[in-house]
Every structure is written in structure tokens, then in C-alpha cells.
């Protein structure tokens, strides 16, 4: 008898977690951000409930500032999975025209943090799957698979439940909701290997190709549409780039790369010298920034 491979074990564990949520929560939803982790999570959901379609909807908390290619894949992925896609945009942010160029961290707060809370309240979801991994950042290393939020969505780090064996305690008090992270034990390399092995469709932006870019504050930004406010003297320049992580296009730094296939991406990743989240402007503030954001309700 040969051992299961690490990817088989990770897959089986994620499926187990998803089924537990389905059996114990009243109204689950899967948060879908269109990134590579979301793609893997969605793929696992299809496996967990096959031949049924995943028995919950996908929810995209939209900021209106994602890459065009992400919006295209979003529709297709939901349709392929046979799942309902809910898109939520914070009406206040829409009204005020909140954008990453003028509003700094308010952009993330209003679209993502507030938007997520509003969306969960609006639909009354009591459990939300998210694609976060423990290897992403120091503060996430101790995050639970089932993470409880109070009625106003705040996270109480002093009051997290111990998780033993495969026994997840999904009982919650009135008004509480759960964030569930089925990819907790996956690493970035696991995610890429699994995408390769399972032939999972991901946003083409992960593959290198010549794209219009500008360089700003040390980040290479892609000029994805005409809302990009060019500064004086800035001229978009074609660079061969790709993205290691995807978010709002004006906040997501690209890397210069020739990696146009999955093996090349993995090769580049393995030989890379900087960690994944460096491309995200949001984390640069301070080491404790993620902890703080989490307490306020950022996923």
C-alpha cells in the first residue's frame, strides 16, 4: 500500500471540511475572488459534492476595480460549475465613486471590508468559505479552519475554539457567523502543482505576456482600462509581465517575467527570492496590519 500523495491528502481534507460545513451550517456561501486560490477552492467544491453541483452560491464582493480578465472568468467559472453567482458592490462606495487612486486605504475598507459585511447580512449567510492559507503570512499561521465572527463581524482572537482531530465545532450563537478556510494547510507551491495536475482554468494574467504598464512607487502596475489616471509624464509601456497574486488592478504589482506556461510559473516561483504578498500594496503598512484588518472584518 503506497501512501497518498501530499496533494491527495490536502484534497481529501479540504473536501471533508466543505462537507462538514454543508451538513452543519444553515446557509453557506463560497466567497469567490477569481484568483488562483479561489479557482482551486471552487474545483474542490465540485469534487466534494459530485455528482451534485456545489449546493451553495458563489459570492463575489466586487470593487469594480478588478482586472477585466477576472470579470470574464468569473462568469464562465460559475456557469461551468452550475452555481449561482452573486455579485455585491457596496452601494455607498458606488455612490461616492470610491477608487484606489483618490481614496487610499478607504478603498479597501469600503469595498471589501464593508462590502463583505453588508453582503453576508443582506443574504443571511451563516458560513462563508474563503481561500486564505496559513502560509501566506505569519499572523495567519495560527488561524483556525473555522473562524467565528460576532454579529457585527468582528473577530475575537482571544475566543477561538481549539480544533482537534477532524472534529470541527460549527455550533454558533444567534447572529454569529463562521468563516471557513478549507485551504488552510495548502502552500503556494501546493496550489500551483494542483492547478497543473488538475488542469484548472485560471485568469490568463498569471501567465506572462506583453501588457501596457507604468512603474510607480517601485510597483509595476498594469493599465487595464482608461480609468487608470496617468500622472504627468507617464506613458504606458509594454512590458512582458505576469501577476503572482490578483486584486484591484491599480493596487496589484506585476513581476517582469517570461513564464508563459504553468511549469515555467512554478519554476519561477521556486527560484523566486521574494514572498508572494509583496505584490500587494495593502500589506506594506506594518507587520500587524493583517491582524488589525482581520479584527475589523477583512477576510
Amino acid at each position: 500500500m503506497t501512501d497518498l500523495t501530499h496533494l491527495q491528502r490536502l484534497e481529501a481534507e479540504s473536501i471533508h471540511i466543505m462537507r462538514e460545513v454543508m451538513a452543519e451550517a444553515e446557509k453557506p456561501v463560497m466567497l469567490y475572488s477569481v484568483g488562483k486560490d479561489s479557482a482551486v477552492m471552487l474545483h474542490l467544491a465540485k469534487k466534494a459534492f459530485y455528482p451534485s453541483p456545489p449546493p451553495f452560491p458563489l459570492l463575489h464582493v466586487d470593487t469594480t476595480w478588478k482586472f477585466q480578465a477576472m470579470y470574464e472568468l468569473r462568469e464562465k467559472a460559475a456557469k461551468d460549475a452550475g452555481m449561482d453567482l452573486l455579485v455585491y458592490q457596496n452601494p455607498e462606495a458606488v455612490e461616492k465613486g470610491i477608487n484606489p487612486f483618490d481614496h487610499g486605504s478607504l478603498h479597501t475598507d469600503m469595498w471589501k471590508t464593508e462590502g463583505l459585511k453588508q453582503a453576508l447580512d443582506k443574504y443571511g449567510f451563516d458560513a462563508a468559505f474563503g481561500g486564505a492559507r496559513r502560509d501566506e503570512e505569519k499572523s495567519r499561521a495560527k488561524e483556525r479552519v473555522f473562524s467565528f465572527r460576532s454579529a457585527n463581524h468582528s473577530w475575537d482572537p482571544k475566543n477561538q475554539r481549539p480544533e482537534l482531530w477532524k472534529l470541527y465545532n460549527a455550533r454558533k450563537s444567534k447572529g454569529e457567523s463562521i468563516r471557513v478556510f478549507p485551504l488552510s494547510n495548502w502552500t503556494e507551491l501546493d496550489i500551483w502543482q494542483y492547478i497543473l495536475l488538475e488542469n484548472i482554468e485560471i485568469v490568463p494574467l498569471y501567465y506572462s505576456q506583453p501588457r501596457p504598464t507604468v512603474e510607480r512607487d517601485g510597483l509595476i502596475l498594469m493599465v487595464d482600462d482608461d480609468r487608470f489616471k496617468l500622472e504627468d509624464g507617464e506613458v504606458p509601456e509594454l512590458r512582458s509581465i505576469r501577476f503572482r497574486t490578483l486584486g484591484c488592478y491599480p493596487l496589484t504589482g506585476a513581476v517582469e517575467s517570461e513564464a508563459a506556461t504553468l511549469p515555467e510559473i512554478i519554476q519561477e516561483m521556486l527560484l523566486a527570492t521574494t514572498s508572494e504578498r509583496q505584490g500587494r500594496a495593502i500589506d506594506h503598512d506594518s507587520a500587524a496590519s493583517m491582524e488589525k484588518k482581520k479584527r475589523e472584518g477583512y477576510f
Partner: protein
Amino acid sequence: MSTDNETIYETDALIAEDIDAYLEAHQYKSMLRFITCGSVDDGKSTLIGRLLYDSKMIFEDQLASLEHDSKAMGTQGQEIDFALLVDGLAAEREQGITIDVAYRFFATEKRKFIVADTPGHEQYTRNMVTGASTADLAVILIDARQGVLTQTRRHSYLVHLLGIRNVILAVNKMDLVGYEQDRFDEIVADYTEFATSIGMTDFQAIPISGLKGDNIVALADTTPWYQGTSLMQALEDAPINDARMAGAQFRMPVQWVNRPNLDFRGFSGQVASGQIHPGDPVRILPSGKTTTVKSIVTMDGELDVAVAGQSVTLTMTDEVDCSRGDVITLSDEPVEVADQFEATIVWMADEEMLPGRPYQMKIGTNRVTATITEPKYEVNVNTMEQLPARTLALNTIGVCNIATDRPVPFDAYDDNPDLGGFILIDRITNQTVGAGMIHFALRRSHNIHWQAVDIDREAHAAQKNQTPKLLWFTGLSGSGKSTIANHVEQKLHAAGKHTFLLDGDNVRHGLNKDLGFTDVDRVENIRRVGEVAKLMTDAGLIVLTAFISPFIAERRMVRDMMPEGDFIEVFVDTPLDVAEQRDVKGLYKKARAGELKNFTGIDSPYEAPENAEIIVNTVELSAEDAADVIVKRLLEGA
């Protein structure tokens, strides 16, 4: 050190030259989960940091900040302090974040590793048990200068308790004892003696220096006398639990019934042990019904075999009853089913364990109500002594008898952790308050059966021409419970009803005279009264009880014993200051003077009902009027 770096460069070369070959090799890695045990002084963080560094899990930006921090802290002179990679504890303490289990990841050519790191001394038992519950292996760290300490024994006991069969004894800081073989041998001999005493039959001892990297990835020149393997190689070679469980009897707890349409009905779950093939005859527990596996369904196609660790969906040849919480086994190798067990329980909540209080128990995919019927003893985790116990406090471990409200399919924890490990959940706060490991079912569980009688509850009640009810009066001492209950009984009696009043003080003269006023005894007091009241309602009576009954959980326990609608909670609502002013029995005065301990309202809590059927306010109503309100409600409702 040079050897370590060569390994990394060789890997880099393969990645650079032939990524496809590299990926091919790396897709078939196995995965090992382990826990590191030791406190800060043993160099645990340094060791984990070293493993991450040597397996190239540290990126340049992280390394840059690490080098910067190392120099700033100055703990290792100009050298890198690997502990800083994983510590972050100071920051956590400042932010008031629970310091518990953190999971870290690294990989080598052969394996992916998940390390459960349980830092610090606080909450150590709870955290270590949590981390150990999913581990295939434990690395127990010893400071070579200190040798086997109390904490080494504690860690080893917990590791053994959780059933971890692969133990590595890492004798660390060998550089500080001059890499002396005598010192190493001495420690190993000490440890062997202790390990034998707790029943640990096997372990592997490795002399290391986490700081210098000796015997971590490759064998070091500094310990030529050591003939074993490096730590990394030991981690790569250790057997994995799933592989062991694949050889055990087949068990699959059913998680979810998959029913997309009328033509398909599948039972989804993760195989806990053994293996299963299409055509295998199976038995479903607890019903005991048998059928045959028709197919093993996955999105990647139907399988010829499913083994321990895999998540699958089984279809059967018959339309057999099977739902979440059931366990599927081979038909001639069924699990036991019982409702009373002996188990080891690790208590994880600030509030102590209360025997008699119903907790929710999750075992496999099953959820039942469980009560601790009898704590037998507590284990001192430092000395392994057995101490008498009536309860368990936070971070203590004890052996208890436990009863469930319905029969549960299970295996002994030692045979099958997935079928014998359970958690206990507080039904009010919903927190996980305990973890347990089943030893065996109690024999009485098999031998006591419910005897059916012909003159039943309905027959008794019909003869008395009334509906049996339980009027449960709750409120502070001096609130007027007994007085009002007494009036109510008089009025019901006058109306021709058959009644009985159970009074708190009176019961303590007889049935409950062995009980005191600790939380543990209060719970047992109410449990017994609840059982007696239930028997009396079975006899057709309208029963009235007057007990402070301060805890929501126990009132709910009695409510759950009774048929729906027969439990009527009467909250005699009297503010503390009013009750204390009345002080009919002079008890508040004594309690305030410190002569009476655990007095409700003074130094023991009263949890007011949230959804009482009847509330009477004794500040506004006289006892007589309150009784009228209650009788009216009862007779109208009936």
C-alpha cells in the same frame, strides 16, 4: 553546513534545468504532520526556523528582515537568529492574542511537512493536545545541559496519551556540552526509563544543535560517535498514520447524503481506516442493516478501491437507511455501539467540568448529548499520579465515565482515533470545552434495557382526568418560590387535581443529603430532582418544584427530559436587594459575613431564565396573587 547548502543548490539546478522532471518527482511526495514539544528555552523556535531555512522556505525579503531583526536584537551576535522567524510572540502578547497552535510548512525532496508549533507555557496542555491530535509524529526537545525535566515528562505523557507512535527525542544544544557522547547516552538512558514507565515502547534519539545546524539536515563531523540518521532524514522516513490506518478494519463515518436526483443516492465521507471495493458487503451502524457497495463515486471517475484518508461517495445496491452520523463498516467487522463509556477527558475551558450537566458531544460525524456520570480520577501530568477528582479544571486531564442520550458507533481511541476521539461543547456558549478519548464501553451499557410497561403515562393521567405537568419554580433564595408553590398546590388540590410539591430544603434532608452547594453538587441536585419529577409525571401527577436552580443548563436539561410542552418554567422574579432585605432564613446575612460559601447571588451566580413560560414579579404581586396568575395560566393552558 556546507552539506546543507549543496542540497539546496542541487535542487535549484534541477528546477532551473528540468522543471518538468522536478514537478513529476514532487507531485508524488507524501505528507507528514508533526508536533514539536519543548519550551522556549529548549530552542524549539530556533529548530523550526532552521528547518524552514534549510528547506528553503524563507524568501529573500523575509531573510533581509530577519537579518535586520537579528542584528537589532543582538541575541546571536552577528549571526542569524532563526527563532525570530517563528516567534512573533512578544507582538502577540502585546496585542492580547491567544498564544496557541501555529502551523508551519516546509518541504523536502521526499515530503511535505506540517509542523504544529505550540509555544509558551500558558495553556500548554490544551494547546499541545490540540496540536498532537493531528500529528503523525512528535519531536520532543531536550536541552542537553538540563536533561530530562518535569516538562519533558509532561510532554511525553501527552504525546503518548494522544496515541502518537513515532517519537523523536531531539537532544538539543549539543554544542554547549562539547558534543559529548557520555552526556547524550546518559540522557537517553534516563529517558528510556521514563518512557518505559508510561508505556512508550519506542523512540529515536538524535543529538542535534539547532543553532549550529548539526545533524539537522546532514550528519555533522562534530558527533562522529553518532551512527543514526539526521533529524530531517528521520522525518522523511517515519511512517504516516494514514498508512497504518489503511491496514485496519474499514470505517467510514457518513458526512452527507448526496442526492442530486431520484436516481442517485450516495453516502459521502472520508475513509477513516481500511479500504473498500465495489461489491464488498457492508453494515451500517447503529442500525446494523447490511447491503453491498455498488460503486465508489468521485469526479475523477469511479474507483476500484478507496483507502484510509480519501474523501469519497459510496452508492449501495439497496435503498438502505443511512444518514449523517452513521458509520459504514464491512459487514463482518462492525464497530461497537454503546451509550456508556470510560474515557480520558482533557478539560479546555475556564469553567470547570460539571458532572451531570449535559454537554454536546461530537464524535466522528455524530452529535449527541452526553453527561459525565462519574469522574474517576485526575492525572497529575507532571508526576503521572492519580488523584481523586469530582470535577476537572482548565488544562487538567482525568478519566471519567460518560453517558450519551442515544447509542453511538465507536472504536477505542487507541485502535482508531477518528472513531474514538470526541469533543465536548457547552450547549449555552457553544464553545469547545473538552476533548476525550474513549477507552471502552461500560458493560452495564450492554446489559440494562428499557422495560416496557402496560400501564403507561397516558393511562395514569387518564385515570386522574388531568394532564401531567411539571411546574418548575426558579429564583433567588428568599424570592418566595416555596411560598408561592405552596399556594399553587393548595389551589390545584382544591380544584380536584392530583399534585405533589418537591421542595428544595426538604429534598436535601433525604434524597440529596449527600450533596453540598458547590457547582458540581448543585448540578447533581437538580439532575436527581428532575428524574424524580419525571417519574411523578409518569405517574400522572402535576408536579411542582421549588429550587433555586441557578444554571440555565440544568433547567434546560430537565426541560429536555420531559415531553414537549409539559415543562413549565416559572421565574419568581425578585431583585437581589429585595430578597436580601427579606432574608427570611437569615442566610444572606451569614453569606455576607462570609460564614456561608457558594451562596447564590452573593458569591455564586444566578442565571435568570431567558424564555420562562411564566414570570411573576413578587415586588408587585403578593404570593397569593402570584399563585392565582399561575393557576389561571395552567388551567387555561391545559
